């Protein structure tokens, strides 16, 4: 079937990196996986970076219990004889492990690696500092972008209300590691002193009293161990930042037809624009199917008529149709502002299934309907 590629397909064809962003609960992970499956079937060598996929999705893709911080190759659904058959790879982001790898790569000697990785303050930063997960998703994306095995990297972003959490993550982390506080905390060590003199710094003394002096001492040790590799970190973060803002990285906003998630998607779009990044496309998930072209109102009128005629079954059928159309119409009203805002980008509408089945076939159908747009 040699049909001309639609705008969504064209957009995704032109991407080396596709970032799926949106608020929690809109089906972002499923969307990322579905696009990856379809793009692989169309001949791309795709790797999808997932963040905490639901067990059912992991099962559907055959990756349950196998996913870690390194990509593994998955089987494609094989019922399409005309497929161009690319490759499908998937991995589940482990922010801490990615951070550890980065430290190992940038450190100057193995003792420095041990000092950093063994420090309790480092463990906190790597696993819990706000923005760490976002930055490590970006870092992984950068790494895989340069991996010859793949020609498309699809990224599911951590749930957030702020699109900038992801885009700003490289800058935020380097600012943190490069901060004045850090220099200030480490300064006495540069002067040749072995121990930071807390008593000499009234603020440190106060903070030490509130959170405990040993906790603060760990922080100082960490910054000291980190000395000398900030430059490497900074260069790397700059390169990651460039990739996030380059033309080959496309951003796909994912939403569902509820007024709150639509508002969040609008906010995301606005934030992307403010960061100088263009929204490449929109996926609206979980739309209820429309049954015919008529309105809820006409179905209600038909129900009344059937009632008058004494046909209870027909009245019930029309009543039911009216209810479902009312939901569909309400969804259209909810998503209208988003469709208007993004009228110049490709938009895919994904209808929900009534049966709640979530196997590879279902995921693959979602991918097909997105790329057909």
């Amino acid at each position: 079937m040699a049909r001309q590629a639609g705008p969504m397909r064209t957009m995704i064809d032109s991407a080396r990196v596709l970032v799926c962003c949106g608020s929690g609960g809109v089906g972002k992970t499923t969307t990322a996986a579905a696009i990856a499956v379809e793009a692989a079937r169309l001949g791309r060598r795709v790797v999808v970076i997932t963040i905490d996929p639901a067990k059912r999705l992991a099962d559907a893709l055959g990756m349950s219990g196998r996913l870690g911080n390194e990509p593994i190759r998955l089987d494609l659904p094989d019922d399409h004889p005309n497929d161009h058959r690319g490759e499908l790879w998937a991995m589940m982001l482990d922010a801490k492990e990615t951070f550890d790898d980065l430290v190992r790569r940038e450190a100057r000697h193995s003792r420095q690696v041990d000092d950093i990785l063994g420090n309790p303050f480092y463990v906190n930063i790597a696993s819990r500092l706000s923005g760490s997960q976002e930055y490590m998703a970006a870092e992984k994306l950068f790494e895989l972008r340069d991996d010859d095995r793949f020609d498309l990297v699809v990224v599911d972003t951590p749930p957030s209300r702020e699109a900038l959490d992801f885009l700003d993550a490289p800058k935020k982390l380097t600012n943190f590691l490069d901060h004045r506080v850090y220099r200030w905390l480490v300064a006495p060590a540069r002067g040749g002193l072995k121990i930071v003199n807390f008593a000499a710094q009234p603020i440190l003394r106060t903070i030490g009293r509130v959170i405990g002096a040993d906790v603060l001492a760990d922080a100082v040790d960490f910054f000291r161990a980190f000395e000398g590799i900030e430059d490497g970190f900074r260069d790397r973060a700059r390169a990651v930042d460039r990739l996030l803002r380059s033309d080959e990285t496309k951003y796909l906003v994912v939403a569902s037809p509820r007024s709150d998630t639509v508002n969040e998607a609008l906010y995301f779009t606005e934030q992307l624009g403010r960061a100088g990044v263009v929204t490449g496309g929109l996926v609206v998930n979980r739309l209820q199917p429309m049954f015919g072209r008529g309105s809820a109102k006409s179905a209600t009128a038909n129900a009344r008529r059937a009632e008058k005629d004494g046909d209870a079954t027909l009245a019930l059928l029309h009543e039911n149709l009216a209810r479902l159309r009312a939901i569909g119409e309400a969804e259209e009203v909810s998503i209208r502002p988003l469709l208007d805002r993004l009228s110049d980008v490709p938009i895919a509408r994904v209808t929900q299934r009534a049966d709640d089945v979530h196997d590879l076939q279902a995921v693959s159908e979602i991918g097909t309907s997105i790329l057909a747009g």
Partner: protein
Amino acid sequence: MVAGKGGVGKTTVTAVLANAAANLGLRVLVVTLDDRPGLDVLLGGSPGDGASYDGDLVSVGRGDSGTGSIHLRTLSASEALQDYLATQGLARLAKRLVSTGVVDVVASAAPGIDDLLVLGKIKHLVGLAGPDGPHDLVLVDGPAAGHALSLLRSPANIATTVRGGPLRSQAIEVRDMLRDPNRSRLILVTLPETTPVNELLETMSVVTDSNGDIAMTLGPVVVNGVDHAPDVEELVASGSAPTGELGDAARFRATKCAVHRREVARLDDELGGAVLSLPHVARAGLTHDDVSYLADIAGSHEELL
């Protein structure tokens, strides 16, 4: 505290429960941790009233007792932090501590410190009287599930990382409040579909584990958006649904209702009945009338509340 994954209608459920409780005669304080424009209206305030989310009275209960009321307040991490620094005698330094990044370093040295301070502030609000008397119930519209877990873990985490001082005492007090079933309950919200129910059951086992970091007691589990149409299901089962859009719509609805029934039953089995089902309202942007209707349904399950 009301918690649930994004998109399950957590804020709606908070509004429904607040209205149900006010109708039972309770003085309710709703605390939101995000700016939720429109929450005041869902709670029964008039649009354009310009509730400042600062503890204002938004509405009164419809119950016979005439004592029920709802107040509304937003609580942010930065407000909680500023307040805390002030109580530690650092009010004048607060701005500088934030701008120089000292606060970032401290927050990373003792992760969860901001979460703990938010919970500490909530604990403070529980003890505080509103303009019309002490609150009977503080209902927190919690963050989305992932963050809710780290929020609820923060007291235990801080109590372990910080080995002394005022922060540690704060952590222990908050942890004790959360673990006391007479003072705190966690209300989990989900949708009647497979993945949300699976995720709820996972979350449930984490939060209620008595050896875990959280060890809270659950309130009712709320299933939001449950569709129920036995007449349509029967019609489809009897084979009287025609081909075409009328029949397609009937089959779609019947299949969906069957999924919802199955998932609610699965939760009921796991939870021994402590499940509150709220019917699906066929409207995209809910109004206060919808919330009132749902609150009456919730109120009719007084044993669960």
